[in-house]
């Protein structure tokens, strides 16, 4: 990590996004006292992660990307054991039903699927009723349905007044879930804001995609007000525009020339476009 600086407000969902190896886990480890930074200053809930490790770990919950439990530990035993670490004795049933693990209560850890293990670790991060929940690559390896239910769970945590700090390499996840995101690449923060303003300030709002006959010179569209650039991609013509009023101009022109349109649609810019623009590279899974 190289000189990163960030500030997370109470009650928000804050995400750090970036490709694998960008330094997301390292950043999180430093914040939750799992690793000591070479230099710099960190304060979490007014506590110093290195000097007040125990006090800090009582107030935060952590779901780590790569961790396991002993193969033959049962799900309910794990919940009971970890809740005892926080000095509370907890009935496992409530938290397990919240994470859809009720019917796995008596299962061994080794018998759980990848998604179920992930949900169990989220459950363990919540047993101490933390003020901040740290979730590292919460949904990697999950199927689309489990991803959505995880998103609902995270929003539910925010509704309960908890702060959520998460990391992900899925741009769409960061865009839909986070109140604010920091995009990191090679150990540096390249941008930090709400997803909407990042998209507004770093990417074009809309791309108009269409299939048009080669007889039509697509360059003509460059003269329409609001059009930024026109190019071909995968046999399709893509027109980047600043706002939706330019779309009207494009349609007008095409109708005037009686151009036969195939597959005309618009695409909104996403956080991924912002990432591509800022780092000049694609995210690889």
């Amino acid at each position, binding site marked *: 990590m190289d000189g990163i600086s960030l500030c997370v407000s109470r009650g928000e969902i804050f995400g750090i996004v970036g490709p694998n190896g960008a330094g997301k886990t390292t950043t999180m480890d430093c914040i*939750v006292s*799992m690793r000591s930074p070479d230099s710099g200053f960190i304060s979490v809930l007014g506590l110093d992660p290195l000097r007040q490790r*125990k006090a800090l*770990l*009582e107030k935060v919950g*952590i779901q*780590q990307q*790569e*961790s*396991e*439990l*002993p193969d*033959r*530990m049962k799900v309910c*035993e794990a919940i*009971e*054991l*970890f809740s*005892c*670490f*926080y000095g509370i004795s907890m009935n496992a049933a409530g938290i397990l039903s919240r994470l859809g693990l009720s019917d796995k209560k008596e299962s061994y850890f080794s018998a759980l699927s990848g998604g179920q293990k992930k949900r169990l*670790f989220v459950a*363990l991060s919540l047993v*101490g009723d933390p003020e901040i929940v740290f979730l590292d690559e919460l949904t990697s390896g999950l199927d689309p349905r489990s991803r959505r239910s995880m998103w609902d769970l995270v929003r539910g945590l925010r509704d309960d007044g908890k702060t959520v700090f998460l990391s992900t390499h899925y741009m769409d996840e960061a865009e839909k879930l986070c109140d604010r995101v920091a995009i990191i690449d090679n150990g540096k923060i390249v941008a930090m804001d709400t997803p909407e303003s990042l998209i507004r300030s770093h990417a074009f709002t809309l791309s108009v995609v269409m299939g048009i006959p080669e007889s039509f010179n697509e360059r003509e569209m460059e003269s329409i007000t609001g059009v930024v650039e026109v190019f071909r991609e995968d046999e399709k013509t893509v027109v980047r525009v600043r706002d939706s009023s330019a779309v009207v101009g494009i349609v007008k022109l095409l109708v005037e020339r009686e151009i036969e349109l195939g597959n005309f649609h618009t695409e909104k810019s996403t956080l991924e476009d912002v990432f591509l623009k800022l780092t000049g590279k694609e995210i690889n899974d």
Partner: protein
Amino acid sequence: MFQRYFRLTRMEFILYLREPSGFFFTLIFPLLLMMLFGSIWGNDPFPGVNFGYIDYAVPAFIGMVIATSGIMCLTTSIAAYREKGILRRFKASPISPLLVLTAELSSLFIITVLGMLLLLAAGVFVFGMRFYGNIPEVILAFILSTLSISALGFIPASLAPTARSGMIIANVMYFPMLFLSGAMLPGDMLPSFLKTFSQVLPLTHVIELLQGLWLGGHLWEYPVQIAVLCGVTVAGFVIAAKCFRWE
């Protein structure tokens, strides 16, 4: 604090009981071996002394149980905990990471005691074992022995990056000790150069001490053994504390 320690120890113990191979090699295998050798040699007193094979073998097999749990079980379980990130998960909760290791040691200690009780029961009820020692002294020697061998096992447990490498290192330490220290075969049967070599193995001192006390000796008659075991305990825990890797 105490409740957390108690719950962790109990959990580790339950997990151990659910793992049939560890269970077999620490509790059942030494018992089977002792029964086998006992059925061959019986327990009639050797010529000129007041003890027979079993009276001599029970403390030796107790040494074998101490080595199996202190070296094999400890190394493999801690190395597996490290490799799988289980230690990392514990470290992210508000307990002291040392509590996890203490609980692991404690649950292994309980297992060692169980193994000892099984051997004693078989010795007494099957072979009519004789015991000439002083019980508090034997208990002290047993605790010192368990501590020193666990401390020795903590060295590879601290360093092995994977469960597999932990297993290999543990095997390299365990088997020579098992065969040469007198745990399985009486040390007197060894040729003299191996007998000399066996003096560098901590388990040899465990077995000499336990056998000596068993047959009526006293702690102060074994200063060398006690000094070696205390030294191994201190050295093992110091090295482990310096080198232990959580991830």
